[in-house]
């Protein structure tokens, strides 16, 4: 492996400072949380840091705190802890399920919410070292290559799909991120956090090079709403979503008062289906309506040469997840 200096940040501020110091000294720097993902990228020299700043020493960053109806999840909460957290499972089941669907127990035991949201794409061109947009290049090799796992929405010039399971759930919960950077702390709504390649082809979110996610806030409005995360995989464990859906339904009796439908695995960002949400809002969630929602979910989809199967798959996943969420 490449040589690097490992630093452990005791606080978010320290992480930012360590990163800035390294950068000032001309040293490439990378933040690392659970380690599973980034370390593999370092081994493959896709990421080449001189300084690795570990966030796992942050005090209290692994806590989940509810206050005033709002729930704050430290960014260093592990996916395992998140998936087993009773209050999260009760109030925000879509997030607990999404966390439980990630990779394997070993990865969930160290992988953090912040790391899961900010992980790099799993496009096989990027991970095999092709000089693509995501690696700072000027090309997307999947566009006319092996694109069976790639985007049907929002693609171009890069056609990666966002790999995170928790990200669609967070968007569906109207979550926001507390981010600390050189300019101080700021809050970014999850729906504004992720960026399409046409806005910025090299990265998947708005984080600056020395920004770290401190925590995630879940608002009270959707607490207790029904939720379901349904993930379709190429094998039954340890793959990213081929297509996934995070559905949140705020029900009043059998009428849906508010709906969130967000897809994973189909776009370079968590893909929110506002038209589908509109279709569900104010309605009784029937089999028919769910099927209509499924049909509506792929309006505007533009499949590539080898991923047209994601169209019927998305319809099916949306239809089923809505019914599963309804219960």
């Amino acid at each position, binding site marked *: *492996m490449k*040589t690097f200096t490992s630093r452990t940040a005791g606080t978010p501020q320290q992480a930012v400072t360590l990163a800035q110091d390294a950068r000032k000294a001309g040293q490439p720097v990378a933040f690392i949380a659970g380690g599973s993902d980034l370390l593999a990228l370092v081994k493959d020299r896709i990421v080449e840091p001189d300084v690795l700043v570990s966030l796992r020493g942050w005090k209290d960053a692994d806590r989940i705190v509810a206050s005033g109806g709002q729930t704050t999840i430290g960014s260093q909460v592990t996916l395992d802890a998140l998936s087993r957290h009773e209050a999260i499972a009760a109030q925000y089941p879509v997030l607990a399920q999404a966390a439980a669907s990630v990779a394997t127990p070993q990865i969930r035991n160290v992988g953090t919410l912040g790391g899961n949201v900010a992980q790099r794409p799993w496009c*096989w*061109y990027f*991970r*095999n070292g*092709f000089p693509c947009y995501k690696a700072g290049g000027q090309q997307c*090799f999947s566009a*006319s*290559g*092996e694109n*069976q796992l790639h985007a049907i929405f929002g693609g171009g010039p890069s056609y990666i799909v966002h790999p995170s399971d928790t990200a669609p759930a967070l968007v569906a919960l109207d979550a926001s991120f507390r981010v600390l950077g050189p300019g101080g702390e700021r809050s970014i709504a999850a729906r504004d956090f992720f960026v399409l390649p046409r806005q910025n082809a090299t990265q998947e979110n708005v984080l600056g090079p020395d920004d770290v996610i401190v925590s995630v806030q879940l608002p009270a409005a959707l607490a207790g709403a029904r939720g379901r995360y349904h993930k*379709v995989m*190429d*094998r*039954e*464990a*340890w*793959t990213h979503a*081929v297509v996934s859906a995070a559905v949140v339904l705020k029900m009043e009796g059998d009428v849906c008062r508010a709906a969130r439908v967000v897809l994973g695995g189909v776009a370079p960002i968590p893909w929110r289906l506002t038209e589908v949400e509109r279709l569900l809002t104010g309605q009784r969630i029937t089999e028919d309506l769910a099927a209509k929602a499924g049909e509506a979910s792929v309006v505007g989809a533009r499949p590539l040469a*080898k*991923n*047209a*199967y994601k169209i*019927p*798959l998305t319809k*099916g*996943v949306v*239809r*089923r997840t809505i019914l599963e969420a309804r219960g």
Partner: protein
Amino acid sequence: MSVQDPRSPSIAPLATVGRATPRIDAIERVTGRAKYTNDVQLPGMLYARVLRSPHPHARIRSIDASKARALQGVKAIITRENCQVVWGAGGIAGGQQYNDDVKKITTQRRYAFNNPVRFVGDPVAAVAAESRHLAEQAIRLIAVDYEVLPFVLDPEAALAPDAPKIWPEGNLAVNNKNEPAPQIQKRGDAAAAFAGAAHVFEDRYSTAFVHNAQMEPRSCVAAWEGDKLTVYTPTGGIANCQHDMARDLGIPDEKVRVVSQYMGGNFGNKNQNQDADLIAAVLAKEAGAPVKLELSRKEDFIGVHGRWPTIQHYKIAVDADGTLQAIQLRGFSGMGPYRKNSGAMAGIELYKCPNIDVTVTPVYTNRTVSGNFRGPEFPQGFFGIQSMMDDVAWRMKLDPVEFGLKNMARLFRDETPFTNYTLDECITKGAELFEWKKRWRPTPGSDAGPIKRGAGFTYMMFRSGLGQSNAVVQVDGSGKYTVFVGVTDVGAGAKTTMALIAAEALAVPLSRLTVVWGDTDRCPYSVGESGSRTTIQTGSAVIEAARGLKQQIAEKGMPSGSQTLVASASPNPKVADGKVRQAFGAHFVEVEVDTELGGVRLTKYVAVHDCGRIINPLAATSQILGSAVMGVGMALHENLVYDARSGQPLTAGFYYDRIPTHMDAPDVDVTFVENDDGYGAFGAKSIGEAGIVLSPGAINNAIFNAIGRRLKDLPITRDKILGALA
């Protein structure tokens, strides 16, 4: 903690053989004490890394290793310029064992380092350094000037007249006489049969390159003491590896010692020596220190061979009542750029058919090298022809089990009797245990709703021939017996099997036996762990040596003090009357296909096998369980996908190749139909490969029965199912 005994006791029981026995080295395996190759540490040992071609086809103009050489701690660098070792077992042998005769005449040599390089992963240089990190740093400092050449990935495309030539002789793979020749098998007059047949069906099937993907990545530790080389390496054939190393390095066999104590899976690509062994040996010589070469998982995927992908065009003639009249196969196998193994396709022999016309063409491509992987030519061919025949049965409105029983071979290639024949019993027993009539849908795809079930089956024969092997058995003055066998326990339990056979033959308890294995300095020649034949062949030698020892004991009495009695045997038994010896079996699978989401779940799996007498029901059952799961991977997941424009593999590694996990493994019910045909060790037949050859076809047939759409290309992934249903 009782373990279910899956046998149907149809033969006379023996005292030790046939009892479910935990492995004699199980404690080593569950405590971490078992020492695998990479666990070997030698004083002063260096670490090696290989630089591999990033191009699918390129000529190397020059290599500049000066910067790497200047790095402190780098002890040796080898490239084609200073290492022109030919890797015999890695290249052209026309599907036969590379040997000294082939070596003399072959025009297509595969070197440890080749120029031109012919696939992404072809070794270009290697470095030995004081640490693995330093070695890795050093290979990154080696500058290679490549002239990039055109490449071809698809076997049919490679035969086009204007395809890039991978060898001067062209892309049709040559045999061990340097002749570019397909494999041809003919019987009767197929053309006439097709012309006069009531029904003729044609279709195309294909199978993907799947990697052996043992959990243990390839590694090797090489050390020289004077002119003697010791190689610690995971090889299933220590004697083959020893001779290969000696031949390739130009030294006498006795100057090479090969040690393979524990190895993390074999599955067919570890039978001979590997280029890794040669590279480590040359580096160790050059550096004057022991060298450990470790392949990364990705290197293992692209640098060590996997199963050859195939394209199979079938044409089948049946008469009005569904009796087979003719089978034609035009097959193409993608061998990668070196012909390591045969590229054959099995399956035709499963059918009674008067007219056969088979041409199988092994073709060079600029992909990772193909070779033997558990049942080398079987799962591909069986998938193709048994999917095809399932389709013919459906078109003829016949139950596929009835079609099978009607058309299956009852003589080998319709002419030679078997030593015993239980194929019909395996099929009928399996159908009964599986409740075929209940699970099979007469109208495919007829279940209501999006989740549909269906059932499929396949049947098999697999070679169980006899052959030459050796064993030595000794007893010392304390009454301890030692069995010396040249086998490696690749994971199938051979060591325990040899102990059980010896205990039976000697009529002594297992606890008085020690087995010495996996070391050419200590063990006699054995054929090695390939071809599912260790139990049959080396087991027979153990029996004969044990008998010899018993006779000595009868004559001289038990030894005392420091005395030992030793008996050896090198039997080379033959089957009488020219009969053919085969194992038989049938797999029945029920699947649940989610037609909305394209997913497949295996809901019932019944495997019935005649593997002769079962020596150890515990290990034998595990062989079938495990290989069925491996077959699931081949059927539904695995594929080394290439980027067509760059010739780069994209799915090298466990994650992208979607190797089955705990969650993907079906519960498999295993039943043995036991027989003793009087051959092999106490009637044992082959078992190690028997399981995998059946699963891809059975799964595919079940999917057809569930959804009414015939899938024709492995792996059967979600996109293909949804595509077929669209």
